[in-house]
């Protein structure tokens, strides 16, 4: 071992004594998430055309598009946060850019699943979509 | 050695066994062979460590076709030479290549448990991936695999407590 030396990391190690630890004090000190972070799904009902590609492509079946009335643009989106893998395929599949992933809502841990089930849409659309068997002829799409 | 030269070399090595070597892609050769010729062909391909066995892929052609196809992928540089062996579904067996390529043991174990193909003469026929209590005779990668057959039995083994 001709080139062997003892304590090759001395500079790093000794230097750290006077340095601030690299540990992030997460819950006490929050750093801002980068702008491209993939967090909670955000749906824009105004621009949505109800094509359902997002739900079709979702690898974890976290999204469900219920079309109440396509002509009147009455759509209901069901989102299961606990199934979502935050892959952003829905955003990539959407031709209208109606879906985005938030970089602000990412601290999503909770003790129960209660808050993880979202139904988005206008209140009467939701009521109609969730009513057992709509009678206006439109079948809810899976 | 360029890929063209490698293709010529692979054809030359496989010439004694088949002349049906086809170029499936610029960097890929297919060599359908009868099962008896698998071992000599593999030996010819790896001779002098010209290529190595990348993996063994089992495919189920379906109950209607009544056959499995086992693909042995040999890589040499950018070229992949696939030796394709078809075997009947009701009596699926291939000879082990472990005598030539010891590293094939894991691939053969996977083939055995996933497709139920008998690999004759493989050094270790134990299960590799599937749980110990996976039911015997249920092969998950077969096309007619019925998930309900795979009941999961959890036995309480006093020795393991």
């Amino acid at each position, binding site marked *: 071992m001709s080139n062997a030396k*003892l*304590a090759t*990391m*001395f500079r*790093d*190690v*000794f230097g*750290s*004594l006077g*340095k601030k*630890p*690299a*540990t992030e*004090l997460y819950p006490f000190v929050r750093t801002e998430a980068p702008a491209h972070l993939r967090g909670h799904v955000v749906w824009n009902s105004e621009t949505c055309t109800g094509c359902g590609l997002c739900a079709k492509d979702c690898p974890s079946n976290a999204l469900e598009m219920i079309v109440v009335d396509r002509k009147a643009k009455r759509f209901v989106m069901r989102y299961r946060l606990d199934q979502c893998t935050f892959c952003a395929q829905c955003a990539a599949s959407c031709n209208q850019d109606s879906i985005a992933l938030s970089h602000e809502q990412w601290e999503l841990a909770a003790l129960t699943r209660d808050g993880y089930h979202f139904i988005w849409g206008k209140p009467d659309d939701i009521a109609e979509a969730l009513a057992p068997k709509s009678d206006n002829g439109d079948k809810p799409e899976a | 050695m360029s890929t063209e030269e490698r293709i010529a070399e692979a054809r030359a090595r496989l010439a004694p066994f088949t002349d049906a070597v086809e170029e499936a892609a610029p960097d890929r050769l297919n060599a359908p062979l009868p099962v008896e010729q698998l071992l000599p062909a593999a030996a010819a391909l790896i001779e002098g460590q010209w290529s190595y066995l990348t993996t063994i892929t089992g495919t189920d052609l379906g109950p209607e076709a009544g056959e499995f196809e086992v693909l042995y992928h040999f890589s040499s540089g950018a070229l992949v030479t696939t030796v394709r062996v078809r075997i009947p579904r009701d009596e699926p067996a291939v000879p082990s290549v472990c005598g030539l390529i010891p590293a094939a043991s894991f691939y053969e174990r996977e083939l055995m448990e996933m497709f139920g193909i008998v690999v004759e003469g493989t050094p270790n026929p134990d299960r590799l991936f599937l749980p110990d209590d996976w039911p015997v005779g249920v092969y998950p990668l077969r096309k007619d695999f019925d998930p309900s057959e795979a009941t999961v039995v959890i036995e309480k083994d006093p020795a393991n407590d």
Partner: protein
Amino acid sequence: MNFFADVIQPILALLVFPGGLFVLALGLVYLWVNRKLVARLQNRIGPRWFQPVADVVRLFVKEEIIPEDANPALFVALPIVGLAGVLTASLYVPLFGMAAPFSYPGDLIVTVYLLSLLTLCIGLAGANSTGRFSLVGVTRTLTQMFSYEAPFLLALLSPAIIAQTWQISEIIAYADGRWLMFTHPISFVIAIIALMGKLEMPPFDAPEAETEIVAGAMTEYSGRGLALFKLGHGAELVIGVALVTALFMGGTANPLIWLAQTAVMLLVLSLVQVLMARLRIDQTVGLWWRYGSVLAIVQIVILIVWERIVA
């Protein structure tokens, strides 16, 4: 007969100060300092001050699981015996800058062997619990003990020879103000490194190498037994550091200086600990027998020759 001096004082010394509770508490503090220093040297934040205390409390509260094949009495008794050994050793070592409460000719040898009692108990405990990892750990613990024990004793022998006594208090009286670490540098270095071996600190942590044998001999210990071993380990750290400090760093001092001395010592231990990769057990043994013992003997020979020439 003075009742207080003859009865109460020894009992207090044994149970509260400087032995007993005080050593246990100080042991936990030193363990924390060690962990914190290691963490800071690795640019981490390290545990908060109460972490070792919390660990021990938690372990005491936990259910103790005794392996089926182990002898339950032995399983329970060994940690107690080991801890008792260490606490007894604390009575002969000057702690906190004060003279040791007990002293008699030859107490240095007794102290060193009382300290080894803990290692022996851990070894026996591991062998008793019959787990695979424990058994490998035991062979390693004992092998390591046989390798560092001789150099450690030889290293402590050099102050003893120069002071011409086996009694700690007398060696200290001789060492007072002389700082033997400068006149006996080889012994000092060997004593520190052997102490690390005794405490199973990296690079000598092969007996409890977590990536190989989980926790070595103590693998099967969970609740109270593990807590006692932990306490014993802390106390051993205090006593070992105090012993080396007293012998090589100018004898007894006032409590503040003693704290500073031991803190420096802990820093050195932590630095070495951080900078080294773990040695395999065969390498440990080789290191000690090939270099450690030989160097310690060389130091003693130098001392004796020096004595003869000076005398």
